[in-house]
């Protein structure tokens, strides 16, 4: 026998504060048909069978009022829309032209923004800060060692202390403006592109601009970012699932055809996840099998940008975690060269594996970034000679990003890869141009270092980048002592020459 008091307590616990006292009494009166304050077995059965229907009804009302249910429903709806409108057209190769429209609209907005800022600056009688149209100082052009020597000789003849003046001016010039440290931080923009991250001097300029910035913020974070993250998140499992499936097929036309299709689909999804608007130039020079493709390095996204237009073999260190999973999956689809950390230090082993890969004409070209580290896309730094010693054709590729739509440079000391990707996905877009240059071969008698410099100059000239001789490793390490010793040797020659001249004059 269940007493009504027990039932009341149980119902209170089940339904909580939602059931009022009167409703509870009504329910109990309904159940306790003979009104004796006890629920016997017959009454219980009757309650349950009648109540089953109402329980189902109650569950349904409870569930749909829960936010979790709505989330699940809306997510699945969204995913279906995504699939239909973005992924399927990219597989079929159709483009709606939305991205170029978006780009043009943004450019118009930026133009308006910069005109507004100029008006304001004129009102305040200030000059607008433009980092590239006028530099900080009128710098003396960097001289070769011979020219430096000659300059020192002319001023040395005045007096012993005037050499110090020469060196001190050069030193202070490099403190104010030097070529190298600029390359390791994000490029400054001429005009503001409505992202606070690119304008550290953000002050309230005008109400209209602030409103526009706020709208842009909403658009980017509430619409574009979730969309892109959803695409990226659906692209990765797609890659991880499809590549082993394709690798199960026997080698043949079907295998290679399908594997290419899978490659195109997956990278197409990634490209759309970043809203990358890429223009490929001179596709007749695209790297062919059995060669090495060499490009300037700005960000890990370079790989996605190049792989979108062709199959490459990647070279790199073996990682753990998600990266390791991806690496293993990629290896099943086509041949990549992954090194253990210890192997990577052995130069001969690296050269041998590269050579073996290149000798097999059926394998796709190897993609290498000879700078060794990410540079901020304003200059090209020293190319490491390893990939230029192999002896095959080198296909140079120049990649230039348009910084107005979002800065693509990965400053690895400032943030990790995941926060970098989220950062990139919340900018306007990634707009870049890729130029395929004609293949180059090492000439007879040319050393690997000279060949690498030749390729570097070609890439710098095509991409409109500054050609620097400094090593990209300076990002993390100090400059080598040899360079300072060279300068000291130079000066000592001048000093001795001067001394000999004086001695001869005295005699």
């Amino acid at each position, binding site marked *: 026998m269940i007493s009504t008091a027990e039932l009341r307590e149980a119902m209170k616990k089940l339904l909580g504060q939602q059931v009022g006292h009167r409703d509870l009494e009504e329910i109990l009166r309904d159940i306790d048909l003979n009104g004796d304050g006890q629920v016997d077995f017959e009454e219980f059965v009757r309650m349950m069978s009648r109540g089953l229907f109402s329980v189902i009804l109650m569950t349904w009302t409870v569930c749909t009022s829960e936010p979790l249910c709505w989330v699940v429903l809306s997510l699945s709806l969204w995913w279906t829309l995504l699939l239909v409108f973005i992924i399927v057209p990219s597989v079929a190769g159709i483009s709606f032209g939305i991205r170029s429209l978006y780009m043009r609209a943004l450019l118009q907005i930026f133009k308006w923004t910069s005109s507004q800022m100029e008006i304001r600056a004129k009102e305040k009688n*200030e*000059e607008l*800060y433009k980092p590239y149209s*006028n*530099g*900080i*100082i*009128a710098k003396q052009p960097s001289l070769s060692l011979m020219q430096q020597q000659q300059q020192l000789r002319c*001023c040395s003849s*005045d*007096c*012993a*202390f*005037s*050499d*110090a*003046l*020469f*060196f*001190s*001016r*050069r*030193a*202070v010039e*490099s*403190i*104010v403006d*030097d*070529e*190298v*440290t*600029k390359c390791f931080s*994000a490029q*400054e923009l001429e005009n503001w592109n409505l992202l606070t*991250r690119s304008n*550290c*001097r953000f*002050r309230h300029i005008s109400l209209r601009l602030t409103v526009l910035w706020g709208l842009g913020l909403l658009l980017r974070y509430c619409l574009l970012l979730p969309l892109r993250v959803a695409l990226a998140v659906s692209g990765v499992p797609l890659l991880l699932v499809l590549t082993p499936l394709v690798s199960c097929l026997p080698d043949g036309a079907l295998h290679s055809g399908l594997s290419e299709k899978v490659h195109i689909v997956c990278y197409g999804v990634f490209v759309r996840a970043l809203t990358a608007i890429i223009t490929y130039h001179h596709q007749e020079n695209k790297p062919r099998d059995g060669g090495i493709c060499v490009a300037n390095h700005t960000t890990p996204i370079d790989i996605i940008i190049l792989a979108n237009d062709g199959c490459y073999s990647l070279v790199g260190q073996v990682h753990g975690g998600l990266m390791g999973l991806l690496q293993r999956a990629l290896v099943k689809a086509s041949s990549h060269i992954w090194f253990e950390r210890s192997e990577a230090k052995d130069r001969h082993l690296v050269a041998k594996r590269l050579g073996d890969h290149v000798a097999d004409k059926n394998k796709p070209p190897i993609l290498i970034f000879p700078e060794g580290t990410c540079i901020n896309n304003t200059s090209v730094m020293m190319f490491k000679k390893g990939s230029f010693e192999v002896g095959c054709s080198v296909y140079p590729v120049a990649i230039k990003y348009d910084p107005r739509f979002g800065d693509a440079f990965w*400053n690895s000391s*400032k*943030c990790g890869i995941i*926060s*970098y990707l989220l*950062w990139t996905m919340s900018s306007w877009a990634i707009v870049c141009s890729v130029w395929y240059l004609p293949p180059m071969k090492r000439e007879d008698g040319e050393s690997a270092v000279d060949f690498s410099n030749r390729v570097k100059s070609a890439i710098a000239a095509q991409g409109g980048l500054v050609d620097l001789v*400094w090593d990209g490793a*300076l990002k993390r390490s*100090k*400059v080598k002592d040899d*360079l*300072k*010793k060279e*300068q*000291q*040797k130079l*000066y*000592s*020659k001048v*000093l*001795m020459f001067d*001394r000999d001249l004086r001695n001869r004059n005295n005699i």
Partner: protein
Amino acid sequence: MGSRASTLLREEEIEEIKKETGFSHSQITRLYSRFTSLDKGENGTLSREDFQRIPELAINPLGDRIINAFFPESEDQVNFRGFMRTLAHFRPIEDNEKNKNAAPSEPLNSRTNKLLFAFRLYDLDRDDKISRDELLQVLRMMVGVNISDEQLGSIADRTIQEADTNGDSSISFNEFMKVLEKVDVEQKMSIRFLH
């Protein structure tokens, strides 16, 4: 991520630096940008390591002495004011005519102050005299290992002989100025800052 120095330069500070150094408003803003990009620790001051990160400065034979010139007595950090004060020595002298609010005392980029900057490069212990040892040390910094001790010693001796007028075998600031009186210091120690 990407947090640039959130301490923007206030207008009053810019005005004070303008009066003290003679730089224009836009030049100060630009140099502040440069200062913050060198400041990796993002604490509003530069340390010696921040300077040594500049490769062109690290290979300069007098690099260490120049870096030292930025830091006041026995301090390891230099703030933006101190940075600008030292850079002001390299402003061209012609620019002073354009500046209407000239400082009442001698401007930082006068010929005398430029020479004082150069003098302090040699005067290691800041006793207002360049002794033979100090001269030898600085010369050794500039030539490295390429010249023997005797040859370097004779160069130092000759330089002191030519400069020393009161016979105390060290060079005072006045003697230093006399030696350099024919040298176009204004041109050699000026950097053309663009507006």
